[in-house]
């Protein structure tokens, strides 16, 4: 029983942390709400676009081509995420680690090859 309650007590830190976090945010916003003057004007409720008057609605469609680029970016992004920790520990894993990473990169390279052959990389 003591072991279990110790285990639960460790989570007390998490609870306190979460409580302080929420309390801080809510408190600061609440204090601001109490002290700031409120003078509503129509212009203040416009969508903020770096100071320029907004054109059209916020729900406009974006080019599907960006989507494919984003997808390819994620591919390399994830590759990098895995490669950094691997690179710091390469000597620990030796040949085994090298081969594993080569297989991983090769599979992603096949994906890039496919994308290239499908003319995804051209801005047409």
């Amino acid at each position, binding site marked *: 029983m003591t072991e*279990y309650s110790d285990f639960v007590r460790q989570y007390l830190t998490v609870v306190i942390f979460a409580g302080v976090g929420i309390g801080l945010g809510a408190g600061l916003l609440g204090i601001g709400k109490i002290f700031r003057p409120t003078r509503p004007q129509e212009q203040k409720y416009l969508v903020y676009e770096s100071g320029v008057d907004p054109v059209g609605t916020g729900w406009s469609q974006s080019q599907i081509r960006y989507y494919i680029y984003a997808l390819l970016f994620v591919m390399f992004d994830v590759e990098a995420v895995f490669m950094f920790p691997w690179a710091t*520990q390469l000597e*620990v894993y030796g040949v085994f680690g090298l081969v594993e990473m080569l297989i991983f990169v090769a599979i992603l390279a096949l994906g890039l090859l496919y994308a290239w*052959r499908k003319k995804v990389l051209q801005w047409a």
Partner: protein
Amino acid sequence: MIASVFAQVNVTSATTENGIVHVAGPSIDWLALLPLLILLVGALLTLTFSSFLKGRAPKGLFTWTTVAIAVGAAISAVPMWARVQGWNSLMWWNLDQAQTGPFSTAGGAVGIDGFSLFITVVLCIGVVLAALLADDFLRRESMSGPEFYVLLLLSAVGGVIMAMSNDLIVLFIGLETLSIAVYVLAGMNLRRVQSQESGLKYFILGAFSSAFLLYGIAMLYGATGSTNFVDIREFMASVVPIHNGLLLMGLVLVLVGLAFKISAVPFHAWSPDVYDGAPTPATAWMAAGVKAAAVAGLVRVFMLTFSNYASTWKPIMYVLAILSMVLGAALAIVQSNVKRMLAYSSISHAGFILMAIQANSGNGITAAAFYVAVYTFMVAGSFGVATIVGRKGDGNHELSDYQGLVRSNPWLAGSFILLLLAQAGVPFTAGFFAKFLAITAAADAHAVPLALVAMVSAVISAFLYLRIIVAMFMSGGDDGVEDVPRANRVRVPMAAGLAIGICVVVSVVYGLFPDLLLHNARAATPAAVQFERPATTGSTTAGG
């Protein structure tokens, strides 16, 4: 510093030299992983080479490539089956095997036993059938290209990983590989709004169920201190958990995640919509392959790992089985769309499989394996007929679209009748023995009420199948007009016809000679074999 931390985790396979801790990779029995590798490499190479093809690919190229890859993977499982079963010779090939029996490889992540190989072969058969059905379908819907087949193969890879998994994390990776490919397959018919809807629905709900599963895995790890099935099994055998809230919660969440994939009530709501909207060959794969893989996951987690903790999970599965069987059969009757009817009937079939699993006995495993194998043929054939009758646009799935099929396409209608009768469990069809084994397993496990409910629900679902059959006998046109059904004749493409033919023949042959399959299903037992860790250089024992 980090290296030394790591060394504590994996002491056994590490050697120290000049202050650097070298971690040796796990030894891998490549031959054992051959079915997996053939499917994976085959899928990747098909995709890559297809992009180098100039102009249009020859008709049927990808279909037959996929069939060849899947058949190759199934054949490569045979030597392993021989090794697991301890055979001395395989036909003319004399095996002089140093080791026989089930074994574990890749650092204990993968377990090769009768059950995993059985499910692997079933999944390969599912791929073959779905690929044959897809051949003409994809041309008809102008979706031709390698992508459908590659996704099919990749999802089969996930299924095989699930079937071979010996670790909760590996199980999860397999499930995700399987699911992500199937989400795309479901939404693949871009010209059909229902297909996109079904892809999105399946994705969102599937992501939820994956989250449940992962949360459950985390809790099981917290409760037992390991994710390895064998370690958990040993832990459960040696420890009587007093504070088992974490364990119960974990088990229930894992059950939710897997029950979603086999679409057991109350986690079934997605399946009629998704089955209806998805391209019909993809539906065939979903009903056959995904269900087989999820059943493999259930068997490995519950019957293998937590078998001596059965008193807690058996009642839950008992209720799930009853709800699935009764509600699946009852809700199917009120449908008017044949694909939705088959979807609800597949929920009912899931209940039967759950009934076999909840028996938690050797007979239960045999029944589950037999059911899954037979069901793959029955359901793939049934959705195969739906693929053809759906006609261009994949939209003609109402009962009225089947009217007059007996006169316009007697062979197609005859095949469908046989497949539906097999699904209903009529004697002398494979479906009868599947249901019989499941009910016997439940009765042997003293779950007589469950067995009775199963029999009642089998009768209810028989009515549903008869409804489809009667619709096919009804005249397609006004009374007295004989020409209309002839005009409605649908062309049966060669590959799809072959697939349906295989399904019909198998459903009948296994119904007449069930021992052919039963013999293998009896040998398809999962085994908990501890991975033999390599001899340690230090005196320390396994950490963790």
